[in-house]
């Protein structure tokens, strides 16, 4: 192991209440869920924190349930849990599709939805889905519960509104009307971090509104509201693509180039819209 352990400690709460008290009284702590991101940093010796909070045993945070019209997904639901959940498959199949493209089976078995969101990588595969789904992030501290719309959760590159005394405990997803669509473009089908990732909802008949969200094209996930308005207003796909390119700001990095990402994002938008109108 490259990263040293001798100066690191792990706090092991027995319950969520316990965990929230530890965050309040003994922080700052780095919450650990499935460790599929944090342990990569640990193995490379770049993990900054020294005090960690083990969330893995908090079974209550794994629940996936429906209350009224809202699907609730616990933060510790793994990608495998999402893929297998009949509720996820029925109500938000684009989330199951995204979960299927995260890593390989080994990563899907450990990595959690809460972890994918907390890790805050602009390339997180589930993030455009949550943005397009109008999901709400449920944050808990010892003092209070806050509900934050997912589209306002991130404030910048790897920055969010989560306070150090708060945990992401789950997500609330209202009923989605219309056809859901998800695509990830990466080097290969599995195990690849995305070059561009996109989730969309297209109205079916009179139900639903156009929604488009993309990852890996800006410092945070982008909900392309002007592109949505253009498509809803009957713009040509060419005009909608031009609007989209004004709404994204991809960079050159190890996985792709800005130019490639812009072209692929525009192509994906056209594919989404064509598929939406296929009978």
């Amino acid at each position, binding site marked *: 192991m490259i990263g040293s352990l001798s100066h690191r400690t792990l706090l092991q709460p027995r319950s969520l209440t316990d965990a929230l008290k530890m965050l309040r009284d003994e922080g700052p702590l780095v919450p650990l869920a499935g460790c599929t991101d944090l342990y990569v940093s640990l*193995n490379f010796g770049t993990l900054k924190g020294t005090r960690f909070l083990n969330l893995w045993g908090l079974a209550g945070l794994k629940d996936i349930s429906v209350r009224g019209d809202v699907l609730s997904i616990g933060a510790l639901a793994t990608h495998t849990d999402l893929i297998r959940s009949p509720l996820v498959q029925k109500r938000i199949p684009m989330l199951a599709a995204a979960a299927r493209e995260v890593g390989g*089976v080994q*990563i899907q078995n450990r990595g959690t939805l809460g972890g994918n969101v907390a890790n805050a990588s602009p390339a997180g595969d589930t993030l455009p889905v949550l943005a397009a789904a109008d999901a709400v992030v449920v944050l808990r501290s010892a003092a209070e519960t806050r509900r934050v719309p997912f589209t306002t959760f991130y404030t910048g590159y790897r920055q969010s509104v989560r306070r150090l005394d708060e945990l992401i405990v789950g997500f609330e997803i209202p009923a989605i009307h219309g056809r859901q669509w998800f695509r990830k473009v990466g080097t290969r089908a599995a195990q690849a971090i995305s070059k561009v990732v996109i989730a969309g909802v297209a109205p079916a008949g009179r139900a639903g509104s156009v929604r488009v969200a993309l990852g890996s094209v800006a410092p945070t996930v982008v909900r392309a509201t002007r592109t949505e308005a253009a498509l809803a207003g009957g713009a040509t796909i060419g005009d909608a693509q031009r609007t989209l390119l004004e709404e994204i700001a991809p960079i050159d990095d190890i996985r792709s180039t800005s130019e490639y990402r812009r072209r692929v994002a525009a192509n994906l938008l056209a594919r989404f819209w064509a598929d939406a109108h296929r009978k």
Partner: protein
Amino acid sequence: MRFTLNGTFRRIDAHPLKRLLDVLREDCALTGTKEGCGEGECGACTVLVDGAPVNSCLVPIAQINGARVTTIEGLRGRHPLQHAFVEHGGAQCGICTPGMILAAVALGKKPTLDQMKVGLAGNLCRCTGYSAIYRSIDAVTSTARRNRGDRKDREARSGSRTKKPRTRAGVTR
């Protein structure tokens, strides 16, 4: 930390953040589990936790407390997949093989080619080109099918090889 390792109860005194991979290799002296990339890309360190494949390089031992862990040593060299990998060239240099076989164990009894490709997508092999691995897994299913049914067919096939199939008759996964 307490967990069940290959069917035996173990108690380990290690740092709770120590990687499962290091606990297996250093504290339990089971070196069948290999370290490849250390970042969850290659799957060489795959073990089964409560029956599900995980990358042991990304699991702190604290999260294994009370769980059932199976490593390649737990198959005791007798699993039909181990024989099939030897016979059909599914193992070449051998670094990916322990993880590959454990991921294949988790595929269940009769995986389709598609299920194999999805289930093994997290295990990289730089020798075989994967075809020999898929054939090895498929051979276990076919051997089981042959053993149940046409003995003559089995004899005819084994006669055409220099070695007799070492898979035990009647054993299925």
